[in-house]
């Protein structure tokens, strides 16, 4: 088995510039509609006019309070977490040229989650902005370890080696996480909803504490579009074109760690978004990472907004963690990829 390139052949998948811009615009509108839908529908439905009034003429009524303190923060968090995971997945797929790469499958989410559980065990009652550094540490160390482990195997960084290294690391970190939760039952009750991947009960202050890191992560990612497009042609080609491969890889890794780490810190380890979205986007947009990344950001936001909306509506008025919905979407996709993209 040889290394697998994730790109479709250049040319046939690439659309013209105006249509790509138009698609981006349509995507942005769709994202906005999902954002509105996510704010309106839930345990109790709220009219669009009330949302508007809550923003322009806040009167302190229950509905307005729900909108400002629960619904809107949750919608924005879903949007940003979805975008961040999707962009991180796209970066990872471009970087490793592995169609199965994503923060969930390669253990990065598990690493961030383990680090946060450890931190809550060691230092209780700190702000999220404190814990998020542990998430970065955990995500970063896991990313490096899985990458090294994957390259050490027979045949180098094949999709199989990388996936097995990721799965082994996920199993290992999950064991350690369980160990800490068993020793400290109090943490378990506080943390278990988060641990399944959930957007319930997150407020705006949490988002604001993580927002700076997310912004840096996004900016880095979008700036890497062009070098990543070159890199996806192969490391030798990129070097031949005078690209500093080490820098590109290092910065991309930093961006992945910031994006995935922040997402896990707010919403827990939500899987499969980072896997699905880049493939869907590549199908429509082609192989140019300058376009893949912004499209992935929009599509990831839409996907998680809809998944979260679904998780609230299925068992209304109670709700499922969104971590239950994304595997339902992602599992068939993963199997399709394993069947069709790996030989």
């Amino acid at each position, binding site marked *: *088995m040889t290394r697998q390139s994730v790109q479709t052949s250049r040319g046939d998948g690439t659309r013209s510039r105006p249509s790509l811009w138009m698609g981006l615009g349509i995507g942005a509108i769709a994202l906005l509609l999902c954002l509105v839908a996510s704010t309106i529908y839930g345990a109790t439905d709220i009219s669009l006019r009330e949302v508007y009034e809550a923003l322009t003429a806040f009167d302190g009524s229950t509905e307005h309070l729900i909108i400002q303190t629960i619904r809107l923060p949750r919608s924005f968090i879903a949007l940003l977490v979805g975008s961040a995971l999707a962009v991180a997945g796209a970066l990872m797929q471009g970087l490793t040229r592995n169609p*199965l790469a994503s923060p*969930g*499958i390669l253990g990065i989410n598990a690493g961030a989650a383990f680090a946060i559980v450890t931190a809550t065990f060691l230092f209780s009652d700190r702000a999220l902005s404190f814990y998020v550094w542990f998430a970065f540490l955990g995500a970063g160390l896991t990313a490096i370890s899985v990458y090294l*482990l994957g390259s*050490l*195997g*027979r045949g180098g960084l094949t*999709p*199989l*080696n990388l*996936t*097995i*290294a*990721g*799965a*082994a*690391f*996920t*199993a*290992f970190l*999950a*064991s*350690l996480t*369980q*160990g800490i*939760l*068993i*020793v400290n*039952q109090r943490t*378990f*009750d506080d943390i*278990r*909803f988060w*641990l*399944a*991947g*959930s957007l319930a009960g997150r407020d705006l202050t949490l988002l604001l504490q993580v927002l700076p890191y997310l912004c840096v992560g996004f900016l880095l990612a979008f700036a890497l579009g062009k070098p990543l497009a070159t890199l996806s042609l192969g490391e030798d080609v990129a070097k031949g074109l005078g690209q500093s491969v080490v820098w590109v890889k290092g910065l991309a890794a930093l961006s992945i760690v910031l994006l995935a780490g922040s997402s896990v810190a707010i919403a827990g380890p939500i*899987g*499969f978004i980072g896997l699905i979205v880049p493939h869907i986007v590549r199908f429509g947009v082609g192989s140019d990472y300058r376009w893949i990344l912004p499209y992935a950001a929009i599509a990831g936001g839409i996907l998680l907004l809809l998944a979260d909306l679904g998780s609230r509506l299925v068992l209304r008025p109670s709700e*499922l*963690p969104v*971590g*239950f919905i*994304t*595997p339902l979407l*992602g*599992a068939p996709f*993963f*199997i399709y990829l*394993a*069947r069709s993209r*790996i030989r």
Partner: protein
Amino acid sequence: MAESRWQRADGRFQRVLLILGAVVLVAMITSVSYGEYAIAPLDVIKTLLGIETANPGDAFAIRTLRLPRTLVAFLAGVGLAMAGTLTQGITRNPLAAPSIIGVNAGASLAAVTVLVLLPNVPFSVLPFAAFGGALGVSLLIYLFAWQGGSSPLRLVLVGVGFSLIGGAFTSVIVTLGEINLASQALVWLAGSVYGRTWEQVIALFPWIAICGVLALCWVRELNVLHLGDDTARGLGSLVEGQRGFLLLLAVALAGASVATAGTIGFVGLMAPHLSRQLVGSTYQAILPTAALMGGAIVVLADLIGRLLFAPIELPCGIITAIIGAPYFLYLLIRDRER
């Protein structure tokens, strides 16, 4: 030719088996003697042989509390190690352990579902539920990895996919469950033999004994499969049928072990490798060696878990993960150098 190599290895194989047996015995006696209060190993042996000791309380502590726990640890270790050996042989991938390719995840999901959502169900139902879960997931893996034949590579990848899905659903059930049941399920998920009684020993034993003996009888086919599908077919092996049957045995062994002792990770990975290093490459020698090795690993992990942060107990699954992960790393590096 192969026959003579087999015979030459025979003496070594028997020696290894004997030493491992002794290790298991010593580990089990130490494990039984250590606890809330220590009992001298000699008294343990006496009690087990039915001889009265100075302290009449010993017999109760040993027979009712400590021995079943140690036996469950041993049996679960045997089951997981044999399942690991079978999966590695079937997939021809040295890193494919039941915990990595989704069999354990299926068993866990089913067992956690029963534990949390149907708390009144008797314990003896758990192995069946876990077996059902492991079987269901394995069938799905086999089905989805099928593309005009089941390639070992796709088996592993699809297995990893199902492992992730099973893990996600399991954590959702743990999340939604009532807190006491959920934290029980959590201890169980981490792989623990805490508080196991004779009821569990009796439920687990037939699964391990019957499937273990069947696996030992079919071990020759594993050697043939290991040569590769084309060679195996050339040698007249019904590749898909044999693979399916051996997979079924692996599922039953892993499922029953997981149902009784939770997901004790990396045992199915470590035991076959250590055995291969000790007794060479024929599965006739590896499988029984791995079985004893797995039993020894889990009994020792349980003992270490109790000693390390006493009086707090760490589940044995955490200990096997801490030992198993570096070993996994070592395997990957060694694999490259070949």
